[in-house]
């Protein structure tokens, strides 16, 4: 296991004003007993609502925050005690922070990182060439970082985090605020990284499309605790996510129609939405076509947003 954490916990002390002068100290657990293991080469989605404890966990895994309790090992090292040693073996991108030199062209930041991480020139050149190719860096490599768009900067940040060949890449909301094309570029790049299998990736995001497209395994955290650890399909199964059929009819919906294996979710005018209960869409559509004339029809896959929203709401 390249990452292992057990009983990981972080308490913060918060002072709250009570009355005019008195203050009460409260202990808030941002992370409350997280157990997590990640295999080498895995791409793990780590999601949760705002304030769930995602970033706090990431800070503990990277060694910038001391856990209040629990055991944690990354690359076999205790992160806080060995932060500088660990820094050579991990890459970190915080979507809302920058590790690039603001006033200098992107290419110079990359060159500085080569010296700071003492990367052999040939390795650096090879990794940079690959990132330049996959992320399309060439057109803005000579532009000062302060003049880059958010999407361009994020591509630069990803490259900067990978140039020293880290074993683990921590990404904290790398697609936040990006336009569709930039998001796509970042996702494709991470997909390619995953396929090569030599870098373990821990990805936190609010963009569930990132998860759907990239992560086989998903860990959901809420109020500092892990509430789901498994595949996306397992999450759908657990919350009974179902496919739906939306049908536009040529006649009014006959209230007495009986469709085995499906239940009616809503009827709006001549549009009816049905939910499948373990039957195939074909069987339901055939039965529907017999009962009522159809004009149009679509089958919708369960939406990850709905499932995760239900999870966050603890339905």
């Amino acid at each position, binding site marked *: 296991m390249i990452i292992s954490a057990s009983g990981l916990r972080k308490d913060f002390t918060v002072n709250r004003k009570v009355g005019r002068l008195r203050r009460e100290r409260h202990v808030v657990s941002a992370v409350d007993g997280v157990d997590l293991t990640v295999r080498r080469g895995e791409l793990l989605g780590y999601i949760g609502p705002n304030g769930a404890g995602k970033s706090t966990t990431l800070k503990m895994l990277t060694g*910038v925050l001391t856990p209040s309790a629990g055991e944690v090992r990354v690359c076999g090292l205790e992160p806080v005690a060995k932060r500088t040693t660990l820094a050579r073996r*991990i890459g970190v991108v915080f979507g809302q*922070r920058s590790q690039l030199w603001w006033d200098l062209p992107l290419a110079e930041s990359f060159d500085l990182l080569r010296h700071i991480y*003492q990367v052999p020139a040939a390795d650096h050149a090879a990794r940079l060439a690959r990132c330049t190719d996959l992320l399309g860096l060439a057109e803005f490599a000579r532009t000062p970082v302060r003049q880059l768009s958010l999407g361009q900067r994020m591509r630069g940040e990803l490259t900067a985090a990978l140039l020293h060949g880290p074993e683990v890449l921590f990404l904290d909301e790398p697609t936040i605020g990006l336009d569709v094309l930039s998001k796509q570029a970042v996702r494709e790049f991470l997909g390619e990284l995953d396929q090569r299998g030599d870098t373990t990736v821990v990805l936190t995001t609010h963009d569930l499309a990132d998860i759907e497209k990239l992560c086989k395994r998903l860990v959901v955290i809420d109020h500092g605790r892990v509430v789901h650890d498994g595949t996306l399909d397992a999450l759908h199964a657990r919350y009974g996510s179902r496919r739906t059929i939306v049908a536009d009819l040529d006649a009014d919906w006959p209230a007495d129609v009986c469709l085995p294996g499906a239940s009616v979710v809503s009827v709006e005018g001549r549009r009816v939405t049905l939910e499948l209960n373990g039957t195939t869409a074909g069987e339901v559509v055939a039965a529907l076509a017999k009962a009522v004339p159809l004009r149009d029809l679509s089958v919708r896959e369960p939406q990850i947003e709905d499932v995760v929203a239900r999870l966050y709401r603890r339905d």
Partner: protein
Amino acid sequence: MLSASWALAGAGFRRYATYRQATVAGIFTNSVFGFLRCYVLLAVAAGTAAGVAGYTGPQLATYVWVGQGMLAVVNSWTMLDLADRVRSGDITADLLRPIDPLWTYLWTDLGRAGFAMLTRFAAPLVVGALAFELYAPAHAVTYVLFAVSIVLAVVVGFACRYLVGLTAFWLLDIRGVSMIWVFLSGVGSGLYFPLALLPDWLSTFLWIGTPFASLLQGPLDILVERGGPEILALQLFWAVALLWACRVVQARAVAKLVIQGG
């Protein structure tokens, strides 16, 4: 490690080299104030037979014009972006690098000082040399001592500003601390007038008891040959002591950050 140091210094140099208009504006301002200060001190010197605190006219003119140039090199008035990075949380990125942030900032600042030497130091000096009679050191070794002294002054100035920046870990807003620093370092470093003008006890205290004299007064006295290696020794002492203090304070600041979060 050495290559990283040079690369960081190079980055510091290029970073400031991108702001050409600011450099030109800085040179202009330094030169205007150079004339003001020089005329005032020369007028005072003209009124006394023994010069100002033992400085001759050309020594005073050199004191002023080299001092105006050194202002941007030592850069006491501009804070490091350390405090901003602490406040914004970007300091996390610095802590996730395999190099101690103290050395990253120091080498970057030395690069910045190198750029300032070539522009902000050189240009006002040329202006001063054209308009006034400057003091030419009698011994060649003075130039070497002065060069070493400037490097030490930059390191001392850096370490002081780094300490001011580190207070952001506790205060978040360092404006109060930096105002106190700018005032004390201005008066104590001999920026406004030579420290020899002050009563002996106060001047001695500022020289030995504070790092301020190591910033400007020390290198300037070496250049006008009123002092030699003993000033370098004092500067070296302050450079080492302050860098050590930076390390100790930074360790506590980082411990606070990683334990309490932020």
